């Protein structure tokens, strides 16, 4: 018997390997129905006819994924080691810069972890192998982001206040309920809404507004570790953006009945995300000793130009319209950061970051960046806050703010076209009143009142006695805040240490 000569083994191309190791591992169940294996993809009303149409343009295999990510991690950890050994924190522009990183550490890594969890869920529960595999990769990315962010910033915890209990704070402290409620809103939605909320709106529509300010802020202010982390996450983010765009196009192409559902989610999550990143606006314009660009410029470039001018022109083909309430957001671009920082300034005695009145140099920058609006806030609030300082005091709000039921931010945003009258909106549902900062937040509540009436509003919880007690020291103790974590920057331990490290006499505290 003769054995036929074997053909030499040919290596599979990248594309073939990808198919063999992902799509080809899929099978059609025969003992159970598809609905039993994937029970969560119908109740939201999204109709899918052919899951194989889900395209995954990256065509990564697990093997290739691990190789790339390990290499990136090696580079990042080498930078972290070098920075720690050379006492790199001494080369920051100013200790004040750390406030931006405190907010980042307190508000972001825990929700990277949330994203990891929900993409892991999609990696199991999406019907198609393309969608599952892309979700698996993103799930691993988000876990890695959580870990590397925590690791990157842990060095600073040895030298600065406001970083030691970020995990507890993110569950308890008032301003951190803003990102927490945002992500929990998305986590408790169905898988398709999650994809529009996080995959599309957050990772595509708003991602540059969130990440570029932090990462270029880091680069401008001598924070090599955070900048390196940013670069290391960048290639992941481009995959996430692609997944988000693929998700929305897939839904729109599968059935025309999906359009109104998708548009509704887009309207909701644009506004949710936009309100969330208003914290970034305050950080960019007021907390960076060396500025990259103003919030207004970033909004015009990354949102108005790239998204409204570019992306939405493409989506028009599917019948998608720019998000509801987008004009309200555009109308706020010259006032948003002033209002947010004024909120942070007057409540920073109950926070894990410090604030201070913009100094002469800051004020000159604000004046050229916001020639119309900065003078309004300088004259109405900052000059008065300065007078209080000059008389030996420090203005902190003596009470608790009215919170928006949806975004959970103190209701310090103003009526369109009137920078000095706060916006008040109320809805009554089943006999109970609920408050909102804007038409956008009210619209979101009115769509799903039963969801948002469950909001764990920090102020209401304090008054119900669920946060350690009725006084500020009680609540601060329950939050886990220590002296030096918050309040005024000038004279704070971070400020005193900074001066001492640089051989300058400490100031009067």
């Amino acid at each position, binding site marked *: 018997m003769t054995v036929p000569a074997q053909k030499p083994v040919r290596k599979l191309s990248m594309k073939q390997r990808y198919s063999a190791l992902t799509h080809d591992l899929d099978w059609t169940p025969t003992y159970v129905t598809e609905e039993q294996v994937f029970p969560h993809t119908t109740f939201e009303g999204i109709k899918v006819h052919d899951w194989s149409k889900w395209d995954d343009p990256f065509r990564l295999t697990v093997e290739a994924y691990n190789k790339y990510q390990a290499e990136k991690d090696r580079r990042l950890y080498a930078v972290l080691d070098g920075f720690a050994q050379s006492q790199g924190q001494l080369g920051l522009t100013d200790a004040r810069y750390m406030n931006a990183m405190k907010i980042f550490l307190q508000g972001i890594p825990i929700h990277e972890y949330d994203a990891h969890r929900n993409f892991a869920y999609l990696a199991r529960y999406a019907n198609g192998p393309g969608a599952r595999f892309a979700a698996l990769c993103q799930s691993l990315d988000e876990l890695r982001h959580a870990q590397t962010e925590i690791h990157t910033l842990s060095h600073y915890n040895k030298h600065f206040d406001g970083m030691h209990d970020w995990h507890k704070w993110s569950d308890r402290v008032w301003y951190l309920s803003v990102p927490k409620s945002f992500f929990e809103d998305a986590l408790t939605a169905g898988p398709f809404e999650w994809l529009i909320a996080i995959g599309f709106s957050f990772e595509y529509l708003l991602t540059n507004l969130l990440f570029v300010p932090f990462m270029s802020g880091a680069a401008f202010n001598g924070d090599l570790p955070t900048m390196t982390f940013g670069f290391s996450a960048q290639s992941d983010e481009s995959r996430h953006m692609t997944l988000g765009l693929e998700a929305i196009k897939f839904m729109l192409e599968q059935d025309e009945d999906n359009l109104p559902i998708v548009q509704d989610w887009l309207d909701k999550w644009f506004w949710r995300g936009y309100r969330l990143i208003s914290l970034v606006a305050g950080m960019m314009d007021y907390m960076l000793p060396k500025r990259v660009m103003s919030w207004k410029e970033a909004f015009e470039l990354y949102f108005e130009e790239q998204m409204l001018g570019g992306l939405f022109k493409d989506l028009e083909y599917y019948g998608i319209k720019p998000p509801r309430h987008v004009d309200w957001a555009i109308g706020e671009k010259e006032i948003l950061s002033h209002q947010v920082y004024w909120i942070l300034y007057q409540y920073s005695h109950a926070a894990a970051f410090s604030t201070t009145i913009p100094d002469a140099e800051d004020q000159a920058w604000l004046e050229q960046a916001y020639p119309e609006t900065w003078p309004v806030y300088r004259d109405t609030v900052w000059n008065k806050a300065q007078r209080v300082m000059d008389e030996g005091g420090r203005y902190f709000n003596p009470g608790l703010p009215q919170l928006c039921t949806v975004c959970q931010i103190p209701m310090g945003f*103003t009526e369109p076209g009137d920078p000095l009258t706060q916006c008040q909106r109320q809805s009554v549902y089943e006999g109970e009143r609920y408050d909102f900062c804007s038409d956008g937040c009210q619209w979101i509540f009115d769509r799903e009142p039963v969801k948002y009436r469950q909001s764990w509003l920090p102020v209401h919880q304090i008054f119900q006695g669920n946060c350690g007690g009725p006084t500020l020291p009680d609540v601060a103790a329950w939050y886990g805040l220590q002296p030096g974590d918050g309040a005024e920057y000038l004279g704070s331990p971070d400020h005193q240490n900074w001066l001492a490290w640089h051989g300058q006499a400490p100031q009067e505290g």
Partner: protein
Amino acid sequence: MAVKAMYDYDWPSRSAAEFYGDDQLVHVWFRGNVFFVSAQTFRFPKAMPFGELVGLCKGFFAADPDFVPDAMDSANWKVDGQPITPDLDRSLEENGVGHKSLVEFTL
């Protein structure tokens, strides 16, 4: 709109009046003064006379160095958007102030 879910989705409010016993939450808004960045939320007894609220405001808003407490005596008041002339001896409840009502004044 009902929340889309795989079961009958119905959960109670976490800010309902019943959590506050004989008290209620009241938002007090000093309209036109953004030194106080937003309206303030307080927990007040429903039976508290309106005059007591005015007295508390005189102390509270003095955190603004330009505030003149006596000006409160001639303030214009609104409750949930409706102008009222408060009866200072009667309770918040009798003056139309409910749970999470917005009590607004201008000087």
